[in-house]
């Protein structure tokens, strides 16, 4: 190795150093610290009573009904919102892609939900569904307290989540649509495929990588849902999600040991989802090889 190569390496490391430092300091170290803390009984209200308990925290979480209930809720919300988003996202993407006029305005409109703060969006829907303030009940001509029943509360949560994040999905899918070669569609048309067949047999398979990335992003995002539920129900009516269980244990009960174990379990959940996606559907994050060419 000669001087110039060494210089290049030194520069590279120098340039990466700040990024690596904060990533280690703010993510790697805390997650390891969380794993460490999860092995202790450690309540911040009684810090001096810190005791090493091994895997006891995990045992008590995995045997508690609260955790499984929250996990179930989270999965319902995740699957419910992501599947609706995919469907709705495709419709919106097709409209944006094919529309004959106002193309710019339609795409601009899609960014509005993205630009709205989640807390604000949740507030807007909360007020809209409120029986005394909202316009929904007036519109439907009924008196229903949507957020006071589990089923309808889920509906409102999913609606809020879908409203806020479908545009992201739709924009990704639209970008994917632009990648489908026009000749391919024309060829299928010549071969006698109708619009629906062209969509299912040509467009969707060609877009598969984009669809997978979009669904993976959104699934991971939905799995950690917190803001929406916090604002809409605060976990009441049995709508608590895993992130809320984590937050409540850590910052409301100040039980750092148990809360850290919840955090680690959520982290493991995210890991499992990623692995299932990447192994199960091929690598959706795709051609990473280009980086060093």
């Amino acid at each position, binding site marked *: 190795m*000669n*001087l*110039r*190569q060494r210089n290049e390496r030194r520069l590279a490391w120098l340039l990466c150093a700040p990024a690596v430092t904060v990533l280690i300091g703010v993510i790697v170290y805390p997650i390891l610290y969380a794993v460490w803390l999860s092995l202790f009984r450690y309540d911040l209200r009684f810090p001096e009573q810190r005791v090493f308990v091994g895997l006891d925290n995990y045992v008590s979480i995995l045997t508690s009904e609260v955790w499984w209930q929250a996990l179930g809720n989270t999965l319902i919300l995740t699957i419910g919102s992501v599947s609706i988003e995919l469907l709705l996202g495709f419709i919106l993407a097709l409209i944006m892609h094919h529309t004959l006029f106002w193309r710019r305005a339609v795409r601009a409109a899609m960014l509005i939900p993205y630009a709205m703060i989640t807390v604000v969006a949740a507030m807007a829907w909360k007020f809209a569904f409120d029986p005394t303030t909202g316009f929904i009940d007036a519109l439907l001509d009924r008196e229903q307290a949507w957020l006071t029943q589990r089923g309808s509360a889920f509906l409102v949560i999913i609606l809020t989540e879908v409203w806020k994040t479908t545009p992201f999905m739709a924009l990704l899918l639209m970008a994917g649509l632009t990648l489908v070669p026009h000749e391919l569609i024309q060829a299928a048309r010549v071969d006698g495929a109708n619009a629906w067949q062209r969509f299912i047999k040509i467009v969707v398979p060609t877009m598969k990588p984009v669809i997978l990335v979009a669904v993976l992003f959104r699934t991971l995002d939905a799995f950690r849902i917190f803001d929406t539920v916090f604002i809409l129900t605060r976990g009441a009516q049995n709508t608590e999600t895993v992130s809320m269980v984590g937050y409540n244990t850590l910052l409301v009960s100040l039980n750092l040991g148990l809360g850290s174990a919840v955090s680690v379990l959520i982290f493991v959940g995210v890991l499992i989802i990623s692995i299932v996606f990447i192994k199960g559907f091929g690598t959706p994050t795709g051609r990473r090889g280009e980086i060093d060419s």
Partner: protein
Amino acid sequence: MASVELDKVTKQFSDGTVAIKDASFTIADGEFFILVGPSGCGKSTLLHMIVGLEETSSGEIRVNGQMINHLDPKDRNMALVFQSYALYPHMSVRENIAFPLIMAKVPKPEIIRRVEETAAILELSLLLDSKPRILSGGQRQRVAIGRAIVRNPEVFLLDEPLSNLDARLRNQMRIELARLHKRLGTTTLYVTHDQTEAMTLGDRLAILNKGVIQQIGTPFELYQQPCNLFVAGFMGSPAMNFFPARIKDDQLCFEPLGLQTAIPGHTDFSKPLDYVIVGIRPEDFYVLSNENDRSEQLIAFDAQVDRVEWLGAELLVYIRLKIDFWPDMSILVRDVGLEKKQGDMLEVIARLDATSTIVKKGDTVTLGFNIDKLHLFDPNTGDRLIT
């Protein structure tokens, strides 16, 4: 002013592939030197090694006798014109040309003066404040050249500079480049895959194939005395005709023509060979109109014309010969397009004077060639058999 010397320069990539092997040549001070070869032969790699963008694995690169292998590009005082021009899109023409001077911390008034001067030479004065994106291809090319010459580099390097221009502009820029070199007298290394460009521009050429320098010389030398099959096949358009010929009793047998002749003089037969590859340039054929034209040195044969291409001043006549002698030839031979073809037919091109010859498709003509014009090559090594 500088001379550039390459001494056994080798480039081996980390994956083991050898891109350049033992390249040695010297570019004299003020010379216009051309590095020519087919795409993928390693010429850009060699250029990048000289300018310092690529490491040299072994060997030495010297400028004025001084080894510069480990110098950073910025310390080599060489300028490079890229194939893509690599104009900085966010800078105006003026800023583009001034950039090397700013980097060299030249005082401001001098920068202004030298940029104006350079722009005047290249007729860019009116465009100085434009951004590259509004310029035409030829103008961009001139800005790239301006950026290269503005700091009076010791060596001026050009990487396929004309390949992005249309044919007409290419000819024009070729003339301008030659004129510019005459005016500045800077040592120039020009890389191209186009042998026409190479022949018309260069004082001397180096031909590169698969990372190995094949031959170095003036265009005339390379054309008249190619040292091996590759050079013979690469220089000249249309390319030299090749075919195998058996050696029998010190006679050369052209079996497709049913002819036999003495082996030309100056042929090196130190190695016993039972056949050789014979090459003949298309322009070395004559049309014989009557028996009287035949002589000792001239070999004549009759052939049917397969097709004719008329190029104005000249005529390309294609004939197809049936050939039964197909020895098992090495890969070398395949590079020049000589391998067993379907139906054992061999296509030969003759380039004739269009004003004095009238030949139509299907005609039978008598073609002749002088045996002194034959090039004989060793079929195993590809080397020319010459003493």
